[in-house]
């Protein structure tokens, strides 16, 4: 069987999270775009990047590849779910004050069309539907280069204020 390898390098995520605590979410995203806040190990592991953000919305670009495949020979549904979870988190982050954190409480994902390397880049768009004091609600979709929907999701997230 022919072997493939891939090397991933990242920066200390706990130190990065600590030093970003003083920034509000939008500033943190701007600094990420400018290269002064590092990408997370998980984003580098699954090969995604934040390619757009505004108040309450975000876009992540995902590059489907063989290393994401499960036993069916397509990108694992869990990986697509992870991309959608990420983009909903980034959309929420854009609205959070300095020192606030969040975790996903619950997520529901529909995988609509199988994704594999020939699909090319997948764009995931996330939107915050409602941001309450403790709970936020968001939705997301993943679309291929031809504009066809591949997956969609909704989630609720717990916001932790300092």
């Amino acid at each position: 069987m022919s072997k493939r390898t891939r090397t991933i390098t990242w920066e200390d995520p706990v130190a990065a999270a600590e030093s970003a605590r003083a920034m509000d979410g939008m500033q943190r995203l701007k600094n990420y775009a400018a290269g002064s806040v590092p990408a997370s190990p998980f984003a580098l592991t699954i090969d995604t990047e934040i390619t757009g953000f505004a108040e309450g919305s975000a876009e992540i670009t995902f590059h489907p590849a063989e290393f994401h495949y499960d036993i069916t020979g397509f990108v694992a549904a869990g990986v697509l779910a992870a991309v959608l979870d990420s983009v909903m988190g980034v959309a929420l982050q854009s609205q959070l004050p300095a020192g606030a954190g969040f975790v996903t409480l619950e997520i529901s994902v529909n995988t609509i069309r199988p994704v594999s390397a020939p699909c090319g880049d997948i764009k995931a768009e996330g939107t915050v539907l409602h941001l309450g004091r403790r709970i936020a609600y968001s939705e997301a979709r993943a679309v291929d280069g031809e504009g066809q929907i591949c997956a969609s999701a909704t989630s609720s997230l717990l916001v932790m204020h300092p």
Partner: protein
Amino acid sequence: MITWDDQAPLKQSRELTGIETLRRVAGGALPRPAVSSLFGWDDLSEFDAGRAVASFLPEERHYSPLGVVHGGVAMSLLDTAMATAAHSVVEASESCVTTQLKALFVRVITRGVGRLRCEGTVLHREGDLIETKASIVDERGKRYAHGTGMCRVQRA
């Protein structure tokens, strides 16, 4: 560094029953799914018809920008256990694709929690739909996440 094998032979294994495919992957005659290497799963060492277990040790590569394990890692582990369990009940010339995944995250996962185990089981098969569930627990039985899934059976 992540290492995996050419995944093409998995797609060509459709004449096998699902459980025979899993046995051949476990025995090394078919490639291990690449996503298992990507996340560092230990899977396919424990499965039978309608049930599959996947486990992993949380590492820094699983971390989100918030300094804890990304929820997507837990979702992917739930998906692997549920999709493998579903795969174990499909007949020869059938394959199954996940169409829906739902997850609840009960506790934050960090590198400190030790090895996490996820057991996926088939709840039932109705025609072309296979319904599954899975939970992620630590070695003391404390629960971190649970989920349900739906897979659709396709015929070659």
